[in-house]
C-alpha cells in the first residue's frame, strides 16, 4: 500500500497545477522504487497554499505547499514521505493556524477524504443525519431545522425551517427540492467546494429535505462554469442511489427521493430563485412576480423548497448532532457557522468557516493576512456584486446578519473581496451598473433602463462632466431602482454604488482637468 499522499483535485487546485504535481509524485516514486498511494481529496480551502500536498505519517497528516511539479524531486530528497523538513513544509495540517482557528461544521470533512468515497464519508460522520431523519416524523425534522436557527446561506437569510414548514403544509402530492448552485457572486466558491469536495453532504441534506416536506424529486441547478462540480455531483448521485440513500426507498424510510442535475448557462440572474425555476423549466430566466412564493407554487407550479448549497449541506450536521449543538454557535439571530470566502487582493485567500460574530478585521487581517500586493487595504466588497463596499473604519464590524444590515452592508453568500489602494471606486460604481445592465432579465424598467442610465451617468462623472449634477442624478436613479425593481438585481445594485459614493467621495470628485489627461 505504501505511504498515502494526498493531492487535491478541487478545480482551484487543478487551476494551479495539481494534476501535474500528482503525476510528478507518481513518476518520482516509481523512479525511486518507493510505494506511494495517491489519493485525490477536495481542497482544505487554503488556496494560497495550493497545490497543498499532504502525507499521512504516524503523527497524522503533514502538509507541504504550494507545491509545483518541479518541487517534487526535492520533496522526496527531503524525506517528505515521512514528514521530513522542507522549505514548503507546514507541519501537521490540523495545526496550521488558518485551519486550526476555524469552526468547521459543514466543512469538517472538506479536504480530508476523497469526495466520492462513500465509506470514508460514512466513517467521518456522514449519513448519520439521514438515517436519523428516516426514522423521524416529517414535522419533527422540520422542527429540528427550525430550532437550529439555520437561515438561508444564498443571500436573503430566510429561516430554512420556516420555508420547509410552508412546503410541508401544502396538500399537493407532488413537491420538489431545488438546490440553488448557481453561485454567481464574485468572491464566492464555497458551493463549488462542497459539490467538488464533499458532494454526499449536499445530497444527504437534500434527501433529508425531501423526507421533511414530502418531496419525491429534486434538482440541483449548477452553473455551467463549474464542470467539475457537475461531474462530481452526477457521480455522487449515482453512488448514493446504488447504496440506497436515493431512489425508491431512501435509507429504509419507505419514501422515495430522486435527484437530477441541471446545468445553468451563464446567466447571473438565474441565481434568483424564481428565475432559476424558470430556467429549470427550460425557459428564459425571467424573474417571476411574487406572490405566489415558490414554497406554494414553485417548479412546474408545485410547492418547492429552494435552498442554497450551503443551507442544505448544513442540514446533515444539524440532524446528526441536534439543533442545540448547531445553534450554540453564533450570535443573536445569526446562529451556527458561516462559510466566509476570502477573495480578490488578499494574501491568504480561502475558505474560513466560523461562528457568526467575528469581526471583518479578524477575517481580512487575521486569516487573510492583508492584501496580496502588500499595498494598503482600501476596501472590501461584502456579499457579492450586489453587496456594499466598506472602508477601513468599518473593519471592526461584526459579521452577522443584523450588524451588517445596521452598517448598510450585507452578508450575502459570504464573499469578501479585498481591494488595495489602487482601486478606483468610481470605476467600481460604474462596473456595478454595467454588471446589472449585462445580467438584468429585463422584466422591469427601473432595472433595465436604470442600469444603462446609471452606467452612462457614472461615465460622465469619470470624465469630469457636471460632476455635482451627475452625482445627484445617480442618487436619484438609485432611489428609483431600490424602490421600483421587482427583484434584488435591480433593487440592490444601488448598494455597491451608494456605498462607494458615501465612503469614497474623493474618487467621484473628478476635476474637469483630470478628465482631459
Amino acid at each position, binding site marked *: 500500500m505504501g505511504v498515502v499522499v494526498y493531492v487535491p483535485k478541487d*478545480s*482551484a487546485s*487543478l*487551476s*494551479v497545477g495539481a494534476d501535474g504535481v500528482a503525476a510528478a509524485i507518481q513518476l518520482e516514486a516509481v523512479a525511486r522504487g518507493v510505494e506511494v498511494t495517491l489519493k485525490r481529496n477536495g481542497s482544505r480551502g487554503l*488556496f*494560497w497554499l*495550493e497545490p497543498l500536498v499532504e502525507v499521512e505519517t504516524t503523527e497524522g497528516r503533514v502538509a507541504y505547499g504550494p507545491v509545483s511539479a518541479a518541487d517534487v524531486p526535492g520533496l522526496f530528497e527531503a524525506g517528505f514521505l515521512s514528514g521530513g523538513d522542507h522549505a514548503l513544509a507546514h507541519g501537521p495540517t490540523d495545526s496550521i493556524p488558518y485551519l486550526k482557528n476555524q469552526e468547521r461544521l459543514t466543512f469538517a470533512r472538506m479536504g480530508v477524504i476523497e469526495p466520492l468515497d462513500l465509506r470514508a464519508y460514512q466513517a467521518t460522520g456522514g449519513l448519520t443525519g439521514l438515517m436519523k431523519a428516516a426514522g423521524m416524523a416529517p414535522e419533527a425534522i422540520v422542527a429540528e431545522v427550525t430550532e437550529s436557527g439555520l437561515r438561508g446561506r444564498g443571500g436573503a437569510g430566510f429561516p430554512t425551517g420556516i420555508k420547509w414548514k410552508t412546503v410541508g403544509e401544502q396538500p399537493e402530492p407532488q413537491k420538489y427540492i431545488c438546490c440553488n448552485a448557481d*453561485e*454567481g*457572486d*464574485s*468572491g*464566492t*466558491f464555497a458551493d*463549488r467546494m462542497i459539490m467538488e469536495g464533499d458532494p454526499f453532504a449536499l445530497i444527504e441534506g437534500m434527501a433529508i429535505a425531501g423526507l421533511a416536506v414530502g418531496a419525491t424529486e429534486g434538482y440541483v441547478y449548477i452553473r*455551467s*462554469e*463549474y*464542470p467539475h462540480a457537475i461531474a462530481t455531483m452526477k457521480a455522487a448521485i449515482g453512488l448514493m442511489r446504488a447504496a440506497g440513500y436515493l431512489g425508491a426507498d431512501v435509507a429504509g424510510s419507505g419514501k422515495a427521493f430522486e435527484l437530477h442535475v*441541471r*446545468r*445553468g*448557462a*451563464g*446567466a*447571473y440572474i438565474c441565481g434568483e430563485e424564481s428565475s432559476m425555476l424558470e*430556467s*429549470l*423549466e*427550460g*425557459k*428564459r*430566466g425571467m424573474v417571476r412576480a411574487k406572490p405566489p412564493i415558490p414554497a406554494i407554487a414553485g417548479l*412546474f407550479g408545485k410547492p418547492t423548497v429552494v435552498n442554497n448549497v450551503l443551507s442544505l449541506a448544513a442540514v446533515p450536521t444539524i440532524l446528526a448532532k441536534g439543533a442545540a449543538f448547531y445553534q450554540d454557535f453564533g450570535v443573536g439571530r445569526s446562529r451556527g457557522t458561516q462559510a466566509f*470566502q*476570502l*477573495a*480578490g*487582493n*488578499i494574501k491568504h*485567500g*480561502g475558505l474560513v468557516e466560523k461562528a457568526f460574530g467575528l469581526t471583518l478585521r479578524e477575517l481580512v487581517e487575521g486569516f487573510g493576512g492583508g492584501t*496580496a500586493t502588500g499595498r494598503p487595504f482600501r476596501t472590501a*466588497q461584502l456579499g457579492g*456584486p450586489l453587496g456594499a463596499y466598506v472602508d477601513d473604519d468599518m473593519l471592526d464590524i461584526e459579521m452577522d446578519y443584523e450588524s451588517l444590515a445596521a452598517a448598510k452592508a450585507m452578508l450575502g453568500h459570504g*464573499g469578501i*473581496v*479585498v*481591494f*488595495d489602494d489602487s*482601486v478606483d471606486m468610481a470605476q*467600481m460604481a460604474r*462596473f456595478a451598473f454595467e*454588471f446589472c445592465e*449585462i*445580467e438584468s432579465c429585463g422584466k422591469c424598467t427601473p432595472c433595465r433602463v436604470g442600469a444603462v442610465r446609471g452606467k452612462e451617468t457614472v461615465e460622465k462623472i469619470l470624465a469630469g462632466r457636471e460632476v455635482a449634477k451627475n452625482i445627484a442624478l445617480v442618487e436619484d436613479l438609485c432611489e428609483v431602482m431600490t424602490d421600483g425593481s421587482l427583484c434584488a438585481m435591480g433593487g440592490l445594485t444601488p448598494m455597491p454604488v451608494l456605498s462607494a459614493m458615501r465612503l469614497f467621495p474623493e474618487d467621484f470628485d473628478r476635476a474637469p482637468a483630470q478628465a482631459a489627461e
Partner: protein
Amino acid sequence: MAMTRQNAAPISGGDPDPVTEAVDLICGRYGDRPDALIEMFHDLQDGLGHVPETALKPIAKRLNLSRAEVHGVLSFYHDFHTKPVGRVVVKVCRAEACQSMGALPLIAQICDRLGVGLGSTSAGGSVTVEPVYCLGNCALAPAATVGGVLHGRVDAERVAALVTEMTGEAG
C-alpha cells in the same frame, strides 16, 4: 463526438442533414422534455461548437414549441453561440475579485497578444476571447479558462502560451 459527421453522405431524399440528426439524437436523450431545453443546447454546442440557427426548427418540432419560443430561450443565455467560434475559446474573468488583481489590464494584454478584440474571434478562426463573470476561482485571481480548462493567477504570457499549445499556432 459521433454526432458530427465528418464525411457525411450527400443529403438526398429523406436523409436528414447532420444538424437535424444531432437534434434528434439529443432531444431523444432527454425524452423530448421541454424543460431540458437548456441541456439540449449545451449538448448541441458541445458537439457542434455552437447552436446553429438551423437547429431551432427541428428542436421546436420535437418539443412541441414554437420556433420563436426556442429562439427566445437560446438568446437569453450568455453561454450559447449561434455562430461558429474559434478553435480555442479563452474566457477571462472580469468580475470584481479578478478586477482587484488587475483583470482589466490583463484582458487588454491578452487581446493584444492574441490579436483579437474581447468578444470576438481572430481572423484565422483560431481563437475567441470572451469575458466571463466569476469562475469560482476568486482566491486565485485573476482567473481564466483556455479551451475549457481553468487556470488561476494567470498572466497574458501564460494564456498566450496555452493558446499556442492548443492551436499549434503562434498567438
